[in-house]
């Protein structure tokens, strides 16, 4: 049976990277710097965009190196990644736009002065 070469070094490197990203997220999440937190860009704050991008970076690390997508045939990888990315973006975009609209409509009917 084939004796594949070990990827232990790479695995630990990816682990270090994922941990680092998590630490950065946690530091930003605790401090919430106002220059990022109190901004608005495409429907949410810049801080939230940073969180989202860092999350996608982590997801990439896990899928590519831990789940070995990198070593799969490109056609198989695309069948998985493109399908999921397309459907999830589509779903999230429509639903969040709708939520925003519902909020706008509802806001004037919500009582805050008693």
């Amino acid at each position, binding site marked *: *049976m*084939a*004796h*594949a*070469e*070990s*990827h*232990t070094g790479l*695995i*630990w490197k990816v*682990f270090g990277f*994922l*941990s680092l990203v*998590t*630490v950065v*997220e*946690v530091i*930003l*999440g*605790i401090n*919430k710097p106002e220059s990022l*937190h*109190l901004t608005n860009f495409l429907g949410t704050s810049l801080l*939230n965009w940073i*969180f*989202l991008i860092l*999350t996608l970076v982590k*997801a990439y690390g*896990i*899928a590519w*190196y*831990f*789940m*070995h997508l990198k*070593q*799969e*045939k490109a*056609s*198989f990888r695309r069948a*998985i990644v493109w*399908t*999921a990315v397309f*459907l*999830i973006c589509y*779903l*999230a975009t429509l*639903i*969040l736009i*709708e*939520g*925003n609209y*519902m*909020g706008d409509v*509802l*806001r004037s009917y*919500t*009582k*805050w*002065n*008693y």
Partner: protein
Amino acid sequence: MEATIAAEKSNTGPWTGGGKEPLGSSYGKMMMWFFIISDALTFSGFLAAYGLMRYKFLDSWPIADEVFTHVPFIHGHYPMYYVAFMTFVLIFSSVTMVLAVDAGHQMKKGKVTLYMLFTIIGGLIFLGSQAWEWKNFIGGTYGALELQDGKIVQFVDATGHQIALEEFVIRSNEERVPHTKSNGLWFVNDAAALPPYTVNEVIESFNANPEINLRSEKVDLNVKHKIILSREEATRYLANATSVVKGANLKVNEYGKTLFADFFFFITGFHGFHVFSGIVINIIIFFNVIIGTYERRGHYEMVEKVGLYWHFVDLVWVFVFTFFYLV
């Protein structure tokens, strides 16, 4: 170097064991991937629904930093630290899982066993942490009042920090009679769960403490803080108070919107169930490794397949962590 090792094929009988491998992936692995995609879409649906409600109630959604503030053995306000630890545990168990897969490629049974064991332990620590997080959320921290229309009001001190009901509420001597079935309240079966104080006790104690303020659920979107009411406004709010709330469940939530609690229980519960089933499958594979099933089979592809599932659980957590705790 090709990391995926082809499964040994038996060519007896009508089914050839899937000797042809479309897209260079064995049948089992491909089906695991397709399952993962469908599961990923399920989780996306849940998280998107959470996002819908969050945008709908953008100006009154609970602030996660004020909800999840507990760290074991330490009192005080420590947002994020514990959940960061949980994330770290899950990522680490992913690492040991991928190390097990790696050792499997080299047919090192001992190493696979050891790394599988670490993975299972990591999963158990995560589940335990999740249970502890739930316990704190259900038990509550400060306590609050619920108004007639379901809104929550909380109490803050002069510095704007939340204070617990027991720090300022004085119990009066009024007698409290639990609901009983014999009084015709046949639909009430939680007579034992009497809230710690009555609404009147809370309001009287609030009136007696001028340095305490009332905080509404409404978030000032310019500064992203909940609005603290003036004493006059507070009196008008309190006139509408109907019940004392401590902790969170599917019906009330002392931290704000009940929907937040509903989604939290549902999504982290669904994820926790995935972790649980992942641990069970890991244990089965672990014993198969020990008794040498895969050694005889000549390859450790089963470890790889369960590994895919385990990494997926980690992947989902990365998103749950972002959407419940960070964003």
